[in-house]
Structure formats: C-alpha cells, structure tokens
C-alpha cells in the first residue's frame, strides 16, 4: 500500500461519497424541519387540558426516546409493505427520523416555552391576538432564541442517527460506503473516508453551535 495509490483511490471514492453525503444532509434537514413543527405540536399536546391528549403526547415521547432509531425505521419501512402498501425507503426514512427527532425537540422546545413569563401571554390575550398568533409571533421567536444551542446539538445527533437509514435502502453516505467497500474490497479506507465526511459535517455544525452560543452570551 503506497501513498500515491492510496490517495488516487480515495480521490476516486470522493464523488460517490459526496453524493451520499448530500443525501444524508438533506434527509437530516427535512427531519430537523419536520421535527421542529411536529415537536411544537407534541409539546402543545402535552400541556393541553385534555387528559387524553397530554397522555398521548407523553406516551409518544417515551416510546420514541426509549427505543432505537433503527427499530423505528424498520417498522416504518417494512410494516406498511407487509400490510400491502409499499413505501419508498427515503419516505420511510424521512418519516421515521422526523418522528424521532420530534420527540426530542418537543422536550427541548418545551423548556423554552416554560421560560416565557405568563404576563407576555396575558398581554397578547388582552390585545386580542389569537392563540395561533401568540404562538408564532410571541412565543416561538423567543423559544428558538432560547433553545438554539440545544437545537444545534440535536441536529448533530440527527446527522449521526441518519446513518442507519442505509439499512432501509437509502443511498446515504453510509450506504455508499457499503457499496464502495464491497466493490473495491478495501473496507478500511472506504469506511474511514466515510467517517471523515461525517466528522466534517458534525464538526461544522458544532462550530456553528458554539458561535451561536458565544453570540448569545455577548448579547445577554
């Protein structure tokens, strides 16, 4: 194994790994975004006056946080096809990851919601803002600002968790790694390179998160 050959081989893996990385990225982005809105919805359910809704929310969070992502994805992919309704792997992956992160985001966002003084909500009520307007114009901007570091942390976790979608036939970064490694019979190089891609993504997110934290600390 000599260096120039090694570099040449790694260079040849790059384009496909890049494609896989892009799939990983937009899958994670979709999950983060859907999970954000779903997380708000689940939080609202958990504080609702209806016992049924709040219990349902608690059960949801408990199940999605208490079981592995891989198991959840397998259920979302194979169960419908077993019942006669085949879903494409990417769709199952998007749904599964979104629902998983929604459980975590509902908890993260929840801490933000409870930090907002009741008086601000009362003022909104007084001035006849609807529940919807109060949520989106008064609460959510503050909740996001408050929980941004934790949300970035969750984004990093989603990117890492997304690696298992390779099991349900999605050509993400990990899957490309598997394909390349079986094609080239050089698993060590390929998988290490794939790991480097993940490292790059998570490191950039991490830096962004720390930058945000620093900017928030300065403003405070």
């Amino acid at each position, binding site marked *: 194994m000599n260096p120039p050959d090694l570099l040449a081989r790694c260079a040849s893996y790059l384009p496909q790994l890049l494609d896989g990385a892009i799939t990983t990225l937009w899958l994670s982005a979709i999950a983060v975004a859907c999970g954000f809105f779903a997380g708000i919805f689940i939080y609202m359910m958990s504080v609702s006056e209806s016992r049924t809704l709040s219990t349902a929310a608690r059960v949801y969070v408990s199940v999605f946080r208490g079981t592995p992502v891989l198991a959840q994805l397998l259920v979302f992919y194979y169960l419908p096809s077993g019942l006669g309704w085949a879903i494409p792997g990417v769709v199952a992956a998007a749904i599964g990851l979104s629902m998983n992160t929604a459980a975590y985001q509902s908890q993260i966002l929840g801490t933000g919601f409870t930090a907002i*003084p009741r*008086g*601000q909500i*009362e*003022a*909104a*009520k*007084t*001035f*006849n*803002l*609807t*529940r919807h*307007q109060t949520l989106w*114009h*008064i609460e959510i*901007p*503050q909740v996001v*600002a408050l929980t941004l570091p934790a949300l970035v942390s969750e984004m990093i976790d989603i990117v890492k968790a997304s690696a298992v979608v390779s099991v349900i036939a999605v050509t993400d970064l990990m899957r490309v790694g598997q394909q390349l490694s079986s094609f080239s019979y050089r698993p060590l190089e390929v998988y290490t390179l794939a790991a480097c891609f993940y490292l790059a993504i998570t490191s950039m997110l991490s830096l962004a998160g720390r930058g945000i934290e620093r900017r928030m600390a300065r403003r405070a």
Partner: protein
Amino acid sequence: MSSLPILELRAVGKSYGANRVLKGIDLTVQRGEIVSLIGPSGSGKTTALRCMNFLEAYDEGEVWIKGQLLGYRSAGRAERDLDSEKSIADVRRPVSMVFQQFNLWPHMTVLGNVAAPLVLSKKADKGDAYKQALAALKRVGLVEKAHAYPASLSGGQQQRVGIARALAIEPEVMLLDEPTSALDPELVEEVLSVIRSLAQDGMTMVMVTHEMSFAAKISDHVVFMEAGKIVEAGPPEQLFGNTRTPRLQQFLKPWFDRSLTSVAGVE
C-alpha cells in the same frame, strides 16, 4: 337620563376553588370617567380589574362592555355558556390594559411592540398601523426610542411603551393594573404624568393603584375594596377627606400622616 355606561359590572363573583375572591361587585363606569380601585392586597381589586377584560373568567354576575355581555353567550346564573374566542375578542376590543410588570415582548422593538396588536388584528394595513403606533409613542414622549429594544429602556420608559401599546389600538376604556408599583420611586412621576395627560384628554380609565395622592387628584370616582367586596365608593373628596368607614380610615392613615407632614413643610 344617563347614557349607556361604557363598562358595567353587575354582582360579579369569582372563586379559585374553595376560595371566593370576589363576592358580588357592582360597578358602573361612564364614558370619560376615571375610576380608581384601592384597597389592601388580597382585597380582589386586581381580580376585579382582570374580569373586566376577561383575563379572568368570572363565575357569577355579568360584565357588560358598551351594552354587550363579555365572555358568555347569555346572561343569568343558569347559563355559564362560554362564548367563542372571536366573540369575546369583539366585545373586549374597546378595552385595553396596562400591566404592573409592563409585559412587553422582548424580542420586538419598541415600535414593534406598540404596532403588533394593530398589525396582527389586520384591521388596518401595515403602513397605517406603524403610523398609528408612532403617534402613540409621540403621545407618551418616546418616539426617539422607536427602534430600541425594551431591555435597553428604564422601567419608567418601558411602562410608557406599555401605555403607548394600550393607546395605539384607540381604546375606549383603559384598564391600568398598578401601573407604577414595579417602578423605582424616581421613575414613577414620568408615568403618572402620562396617565394624567391622557385623563385630561378624556380617556375613560379604571385604575388599580397604591398612589393615593394621584388617585385623589385625578379620579372622578373612587372604590375601596376589601375581602372581595366594595366597602365604600364615591367621589375622592368623600373617601380621602371625609370617610366614616373605619377600615378605610385605618387603610389611609399612613397616607394621611405623610400628606399632613408634607403640607406642614416637613419633607
């Protein structure tokens, strides 16, 4: 023949569980009147105020705003049929509120805070809303702070922004919940002078306050509450000068003593 009162409470009651906080409050507010609610803490005066715009849902009696029932579909003890959010909003539209803790929205600028109720109610377009908001800010003397954030303002300035926000929607009644209680003493006067000038311009106000001298000077009608009931009500000269109610005399004693010493020049 008196015209339709702008705000009326009839036998209003409110309980929190077993605790009966309001025990049958009757109050009539005419257009242009300044009404002050005074009394010891726990007397229910703040709860009574919050029933007037349905921030608290009263359990008994009725609250009428400009002849419309607030909060419920029909009057009468038997029907506690909660009205729809939209109807409640429609009935309480002429009423706005100023809070003890200001309750400004920290992520918006001063102008944003004042304009938000207008912009979000969609009754006027954005340009007009901002114009109205600026006019309100001018009224309280804070136009130059329009693009600042509430956190950079002093307590007195924040409360004046709160007043501007309450003004911008062109209300017919303003409710003020201890507007100066959370302020450092040196900042109280700037807020009181704004309230005074609004009163002089004819704004109808119901104010819960501990500022006795101020209440005595600007009110048309003063109401003394204790333990959820109105103990005495009447013009300020009667309650502050001439009251026969021993409990009110006792409540006002510190204020009397202080005003006497200041009159005597010992200040």
